[in-house]
């Protein structure tokens, strides 16, 4: 299922490849063995080999000379953003018009995206075939290139719904749904998407971007579970949930786990302004739509509910008035809200019992899965066969048979399963050192899964149930062994000695498995990043599912009935407003059929954006040629570009106070107010 290449207009990537130097060491080694992925895939292999061989060689030579990896490589007619990590080399080329900063961002996003869904690269290539991963790379590339205008090539921004045509109350409602979900302490952060566009998000833009990848695809294929989906699928064709194994960097995870106060402090104190773009977490909808009560909203007390404080009286629920939107299940009321500690205490005795009771059984079933996940390809086949048997005999449910269309996909599923189990292990092992109650959580896994199965997956038979239980509970020695190997793996993959500083995913090295929970209601998707325990905690699942179901249905109905809206307000001017924090773009430039003035505008914008990104202190600039003048202004939070249309007054270009170009800032301030852009 190859991704369709985007039209050449919007295509910003000319070539992209992932090359493994370690595969090509000796004289006789073929360059093609080192090529893991090459885009476009119809490139003749000779040319692939040439490009990869030359670029990898020259980059290694330069990085040895400078003792630092190459970041950007320019040719006369194109440029390559480069990422060198371990023996891997990623290179992504663009036409020279696109600013350096945009190309490098693009490559970083692409790699981050891959790691988000697949974990560390080396390991992914041990677990999955190159063909499978090629499809994913293609998908991610396609997703990132999906912007509708050339401006999206400059600003790697999120696609959002056009808030100007939507009742603000709907946005508020979306925000409230997300907040309600967060009453479940296992929920880290969430976002709501409608037809591939963001309605409301609590996540940092980079994460929202990642979460959206499969949304478009899932949306278009309606009932199909996303290719990378894991575990169960529930409900009718109109409404069902999917959970997917994903990987967060420790930074991302930490940011979502920590309390809002800490976060506010950190973003203000320790983050340089230029960096804040990817790391600040703001609730878009609330700050956008509500005008009253701004003071309290700025604090965003409900953005990330305190999870470690059991006695905190002001639960988000108490502050909500729109109770009718939610239909909280009894479990919410009964279970100890917002208290991880209580919860783990609650489950601990039971899980210990389980652990003892199912010990021998677990060891038998567990082994292949564990080794499969750890040693990768060697045991993959066996695992797959084993799993196939299990599923074939045990599973007759519609929801699962829908998922499994072919042997290939089945293999794939099982591999993911084994892989994810391995990774759950890893996370637990890692967390054992830092946080004692995580261990308790881990041990309650089987119980959770059982409950989960009972409550949601009604058609799943007993055997499958038991297997899943067993997989979650390895023997101690295996844990130890696994821990060691995984640690080594993690060290090798994520923290190689002398690793140079890279972008976020690669820098802090450790990728922590987390779960992406998606609840779909027709075109609407509620996506939540949840702790791994969420999968096995039936109470939590139920709570989240039921608490949001009705409101999601309502929101979907409202959004569906909203007309797509007329194009943005056209005026005698062109503008673009980029929100650096939320990574969103507001513009009245539409589509590719841009006129000469739009092209002039985009060109100037690219140039100014590039300049702004290099110089923090730069506040505003006007650039002018004979046919157009563009005004750009920049703060740490936003960038705005403005062009007054029409034939400019004839002038000489010599300094002249009467020159109309210099009145652009004033005009921009006036005109853009009605677009909600405040430049004052």
């Amino acid at each position, binding site marked *: 299922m190859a991704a369709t290449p985007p039209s050449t207009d919007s295509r910003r990537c000319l070539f992209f490849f992932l090359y493994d130097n370690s595969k090509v060491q000796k004289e006789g080694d073929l360059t093609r063995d080192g090529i893991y992925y090459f885009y476009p895939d119809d490139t003749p292999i000779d040319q692939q080999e*040439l*490009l990869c061989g*030359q670029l990898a*060689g*020259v*980059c290694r*030579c*330069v*990085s*040895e*000379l*400078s*003792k*630092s*990896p*190459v*970041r*950007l*490589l*320019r*040719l*006369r*007619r*194109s440029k390559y953003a480069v990422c060198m990590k371990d023996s891997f080399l990623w290179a992504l080329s663009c036409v*020279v018009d696109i600013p350096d900063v945009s190309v490098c961002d693009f490559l970083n996003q692409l790699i981050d995206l891959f790691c988000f869904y697949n974990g560390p690269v080396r390991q992914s290539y041990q677990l999955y075939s190159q063909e499978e991963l090629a499809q994913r790379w293609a998908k991610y590339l396609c997703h990132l290139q999906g912007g509708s205008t050339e401006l999206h090539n400059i600003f790697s921004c999120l696609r959002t719904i056009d808030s100007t045509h939507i009742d603000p109350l709907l946005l508020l409602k979306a925000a409230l749904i997300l907040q309600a979900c967060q009453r479940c302490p296992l929920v880290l952060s969430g976002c709501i998407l409608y037809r591939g566009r963001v309605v409301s998000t609590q996540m940092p833009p980079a994460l929202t971007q990642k979460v959206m990848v499969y949304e478009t695809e899932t949306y278009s294929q309606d009932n199909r579970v996303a290719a990378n989906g894991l575990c169960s699928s529930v409900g009718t064709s109109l409404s069902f949930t999917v959970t997917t194994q994903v990987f967060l960097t420790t930074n991302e995870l930490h940011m979502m786990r920590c309390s809002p106060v800490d976060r506010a402090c950190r973003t203000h104190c320790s983050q340089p302004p230029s960096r804040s773009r990817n790391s600040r977490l703001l609730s878009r909808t609330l700050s956008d739509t509500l005008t009253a009560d701004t003071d309290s909203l700025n604090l965003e007390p409900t953005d990330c509910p305190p999870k470690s404080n059991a006695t905190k009286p002001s639960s988000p629920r108490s502050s909500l008035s729109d109770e009718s939107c939610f239909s909280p299940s009894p479990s919410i009321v009964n279970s100890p809200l917002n208290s991880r500690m209580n919860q783990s205490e609650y489950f601990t005795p039971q899980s210990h019992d389980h652990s003892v009771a199912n010990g021998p059984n677990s060891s038998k079933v567990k082994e292949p899965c564990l080794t499969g996940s750890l040693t990768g390809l060697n045991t993959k086949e066996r695992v797959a066969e084993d799993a196939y048997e299990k599923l074939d005999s045990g599973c007759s449910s519609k929801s699962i048979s829908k998922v499994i269309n072919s042997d290939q996909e089945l293999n794939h599923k099982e591999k993911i399963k084994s892989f994810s189990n391995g990774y759950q292990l890893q996370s637990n092992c890692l967390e054992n050192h830092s946080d004692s109650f995580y261990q308790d959580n881990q041990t309650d896994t089987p119980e959770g899964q059982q409950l989960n199965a009972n409550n949601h997956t009604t058609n799943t038979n007993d055997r499958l149930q038991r297997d899943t239980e067993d997989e979650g509970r390895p023997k101690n020695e295996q844990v130890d062994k696994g821990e060691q190997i995984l640690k080594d793996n993690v060290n090798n993959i994520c923290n190689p000695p002398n690793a*140079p*500083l*890279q972008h976020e995913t690669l820098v802090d090295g450790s990728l922590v498995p987390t779960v992406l929970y998606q609840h779909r209601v027709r075109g609407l998707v509620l996506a939540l990043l949840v702790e791994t325990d969420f999968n096995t905690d039936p109470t939590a699942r139920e709570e989240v599912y039921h608490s949001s179901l009705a409101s999601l249905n309502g929101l979907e109905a409202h959004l569906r009935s909203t007309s797509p809206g007329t194009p943005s307000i056209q005026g005698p001017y062109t503008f673009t407003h980029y929100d650096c924090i939320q990574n969103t773009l507001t513009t009245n430039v539409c589509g590719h059929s841009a006129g000469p003035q739009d092209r002039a505008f985009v*060109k*100037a914008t690219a*140039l100014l954006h590039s*300049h702004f990104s290099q*110089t923090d*202190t*730069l*506040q*505003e*600039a*006007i*650039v*002018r*040629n*004979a*046919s157009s*003048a563009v005004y750009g202004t920049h703060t740490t939070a936003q960038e705005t570009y403005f062009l007054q249309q029409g034939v400019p007054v*004839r*002038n*000489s*270009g*010599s*300094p*002249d*106070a009467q*020159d109309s*170009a*210099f009145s652009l800032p004033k005009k921009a301030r006036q005109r853009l107010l009605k677009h909600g852009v405040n430049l004052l």
Partner: protein
Amino acid sequence: MVFSPVLSVQERKAASLVSQRLHQHNSRCSSSRQLGLDFVENQIWIRTQWIFSALQSNSYNNEMKCLLVSNEKAEVLFYWTDSEFEQHVQEQYGHFQEEGERLPAFEDSINTLFAPIIISGSTMVDIVGDSYTSFSTENNHIYVLHQFDECLYIAVNGDGEETEEDLKRKIYVMKKLTEVMFGMVTLSSALLRKELRPQDTVQRNRLWQKLRGLLETYSRLREQDQSFLVEAVERLIHPTLCEQCIEFLERRVVQQINNSVERAGEEVLHAFILVHTKLLAFYSSRNASSLTTSDLLALIILVQDLHPSKMDLDDGAPEEMENSSVPDVFYTPESSPLDRESVQARGESPPVFQFVDPDIQMAEDSLKTLEVQTPDPSAPSRVFLEATLKNEGFFPMMPHSMYCLPLWPGISMVLLTKIPDSHIAMNVYVYLEAFVKLEKRLCEGQGAATRGQPSIQEHRSKLDRFIRTLASMDIQTTQLQNAWTDFKNKAFTRSGPGFTKDLLPSCRNMKTQLCSVYRQCFAAECMSSSQRLPPHMQERALSMVQEKLMDWKDFLLVKSKRNITMEFPGLIHFVYLDRSGGQMIAPSLNVSDRTASELGKGPLAHFIKDKVWGLVATSRRYLQKGYTTATIRDGDYFYCYFLWFENESGYKLEVIDIPSLPEDSAPIGMLAWDYYRKLLRYYSKSHQSEVVKCYELLTVHLGVIPTEYILQHCSQLARKLWEPSRIPLL
């Protein structure tokens, strides 16, 4: 690296000599480096360097700069590195602590390091048809590559002080300097290779030292001097004195020399007086072609290389001017006796030290490479400059002799003469051009080009005659004659291939042989010692001008620091440029701790200086993309940049859309590649009836000043500065 600070007696002796060297070298450039040293000397040198770096650690910051010229076979034709880069390379290759093990020649190391990049580059050209232009790494090292014909230039920066654009500019300037030094020899890559890389190591090192000196001088000027920042000539604004000097140069210098019978065939075409890098007066004789800004700037670099004036941003202290018997000493304490020695060694006498120890004798051969050639003060430098002659047309690289006569430290007079037989150069160029055109047509497969054939036919008899004339002048013409006979046989006889691609080798051979004859006649090393203005004539000219300017000397030196002052409150700095004349006016930027300028002193002045340098880079970036106006609010400052056109009477012409240049275009400026000349030609297409002039204004204001006032002031400034810029150069 751990070196024992305890040196043997022998080593100490040698070290003191080497340290003398180092000082000497330090006085020319901020970094110390030597090359091709033998092991023993290396030991000493490294130890000495270690001691030095321990003493003055601030002069060894992490710079890592390099410039390399290589051909397609990855053979090093020239290189320059700073000490940091050299150390870095040695760390990768050398185990110099281990006794008895020879360090591979530094040149070889460099070659090995860069060869993969160079070879990969040419592979990419062959197969993808695209070539590398730059690399940047995570730790902000930048590599810029540029190919001129068969020469690949690579410039590296590791300290973040130079941008990609700066490195590209450096490469273009390097190319320009080789053209000024070697002329049309640069058109034949085979000959250029021989020229840049003489077989004889002594000769090679002498040449490379010269080129390195020029490159370092350029880098210093670009970093410190506004006129090299914006690449336009700055003039001292004193109309009366300027006029008097021009008259003096005309009557008492140029006319007197040209009327003398003793001038040995030399004819002074241009004479000018420089105060540091600023032009006081310029006179061209009537039948001379005008000197281009590009050439004038290149000549200033040559002059600064010969007589470096301590005109970096922190001088101007009066005591220094009085102490004029001690020429400029850089980066060394003035009280040190060593410095005087080194200055003498460099300036007047041959090196004073010799190694006696047999161990050190080993290094003698390589030491020779360090020897400074005994300078002959009356010997001119050979320079190749552009000439556009009224009747004969355009000649890009005509041989001239340059006499650089130092009046006082910081003030020099330069005479540019036309040399006898320079008509040979014109002939060679005409034929060379014909063969280049033919080659191009043959390559394009135009075969027996209808236009090409008559062109060469036309030249046929002339070329026959030209070769006969050359032979009669005792010039080696055998090879040219053979090549020509071969060409004629192939091109004009029935048995030959005629004007097809098969003629290409003969055509190329003709080019090479023509360049070879040109080299024989004009290359600097082939200059006979008699071919110059007699020393006493030079001395007389010098003393006359000295006498004339005696009373003005101190004034001029001060004036060169305070050329123009500012009156507008809130204006921090400006640069006004007349691009048609290649001139600039700007207040001085003194970054000295001793003297305060309008900018105050110390860190603030440094800050402003950096801002101005940044503004110039930014404005060029926008201009490259076709924007002729830019205003920028950056921190507490407000910058403006304007480019506009006027006719001769000062009427401002309407702005037009100017082309947006591709990313890999030559850097905008006037020194290595004259962007503004091209721009003016482009603009003139739509204004053919009048003379078009091009101006630029850059300003830095305080950000608190309202924009309206700033713009108003910019237009006042442009009006006011227009007058001084109109004082003609001649």
